[in-house]
């Protein structure tokens, strides 16, 4: 209750939790509307839960964003049980986060640039994990297709995130946490 000496308050952590829950909801909803059987190439999806990741790096910072990504993947795994899917999400998510944080720090990029490089990095992370699991470089042949798709999804995610960010920060004009 005495939030003075803790770096992050319970208030902060609650907000992270809410966003983590939101990310989970988005990924479940997305899979309901676009079942992965529809797509010609495995791994092709919109990635709506990345809206949360994008918001988190601006709203909260590096460490909370990392936590959100990790916990989101962990809970999906706990309820879905598929180890391969968990490893893929984690690899993609962390790779995207890493790249997005770098671009965020260089002030020249808008949300669009950050998001596109994030989704491209997500793809690369997943393909590298696929190569690791199958112990062959064969999965790289999916790279061109998935990369082009990720550019588009990156732009879409950024477009969707902007109104949300504006709405969230409008509620607390004083401090932007």
């Amino acid at each position, binding site marked *: 209750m005495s939030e003075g000496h803790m770096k992050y308050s319970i208030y902060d952590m609650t907000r992270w939790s809410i966003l983590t829950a939101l990310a989970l909801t988005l990924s479940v909803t997305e899979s309901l509307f676009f079942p992965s059987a529809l797509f010609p*190439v495995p791994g092709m999806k*919109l990635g709506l839960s990345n809206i949360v990741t994008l918001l988190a790096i601006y709203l909260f910072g590096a460490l909370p964003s990392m936590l959100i990504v990790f916990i989101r993947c962990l809970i999906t795994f706990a309820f879905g049980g598929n180890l391969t899917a968990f490893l893929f999400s984690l690899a993609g998510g962390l790779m995207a986060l890493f790249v997005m944080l770098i671009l965020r720090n260089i002030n020249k990029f808008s949300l669009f640039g950050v998001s596109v490089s994030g989704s491209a990095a997500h793809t690369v992370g997943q393909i590298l994990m696929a190569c690791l699991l199958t112990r062959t470089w064969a999965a790289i*042949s*999916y790279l061109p297709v998935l990369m*082009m*798709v990720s550019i588009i999804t990156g732009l*879409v995610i950024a477009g969707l995130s902007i109104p949300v960010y504006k709405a969230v920060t409008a509620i607390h004009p004083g401090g932007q946490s």
Partner: protein
Amino acid sequence: MVLLLFSLSGCSGSATLTDAATSSTAAASAGKAATADFFAMNTYMSITANGTEAQAAVDAAQAEVYRLENQLSRTITDSEISQINAQSGNGPVSVSKETFDMILEAVSYSEKTGGAFDITIAPVMDLWGFSDSNFRVPEQTEILAVLPLVDSQKIILDEAALSVELPVEGMALDLGGIAKGYASDKVQQIMSTYDITSALISLGGNVAVFGPKADGGLWKIAISDPNAADSYIGILTATDISVITSGGYERNFTKDGVTYIHIMDPALGSPVQSDLLSVSIITQSGVQGDCLSTSLFVMGKDKAIAYWQEQQDFECVLVTTAGEVFASSGIKDTFTLTDEQGTLIFF
């Protein structure tokens, strides 16, 4: 808008890898490999050949196995063996030269191994339920009743007339311990008449290889771990050889906590209590490999080693119940143990 973006993303062509993935089964024509997978002699068989006439060779091999099964199977009513069994106690039965020679060879192995190998073991196998998978543990009195029927020396073989006679009613032959080995030899003979460079034959775990591998090297033949179905204890690097393994782990049943294996001790009429978990014979003759793998298992470690020292016309690998692996010195340079910490003793 999202859906529009989606339909756009669906149009880019798949990678070249998917082309390879959706391509059909192995090309049968010139220079490639061909494989025949089928079930026969109550087990799974796989025959692969490399070379211009590979497909023809494996087709002929498969046909030959089916032919032998029809001739030798105890469960096929018209087979020569079934006829011999049906006529037990009723006089001689004419057979083909092939079957006659096979029975003759089986009897000679019976003699050589001091009765450890015996094709007249059929009544005992029926008693324990191994023939129809109705497993049961018979009473000692039942065993004693059929034991007199088990004796290869009682078979009457007339070479001039090419006939086989089982003099006592109730006697029956089961060539399960020699048929696959014989089939393997015949298959190799037939395949060598085709234009192929190499072949890999696996008849229910009886492995035979000849010729150099597609990449020019020697074949790597693993020996199954009797304790774990999906792993192996060692690898033999060789070609132009057969590796035949016998062990209780493949066919057995458990009743009241006791496991009864399908390898019988002909002297006792019950599953053999061996100090060996598996025996692998490495030799050029499939028949010898098949007969000896069962015999040496029945003999146990010490007698098996003594037999080898006496005959010396084959190599072998023995896995004991204590977890040690013994191998004959002839394969010292070509056999390696998987587990570097394991005990490998050459004799």
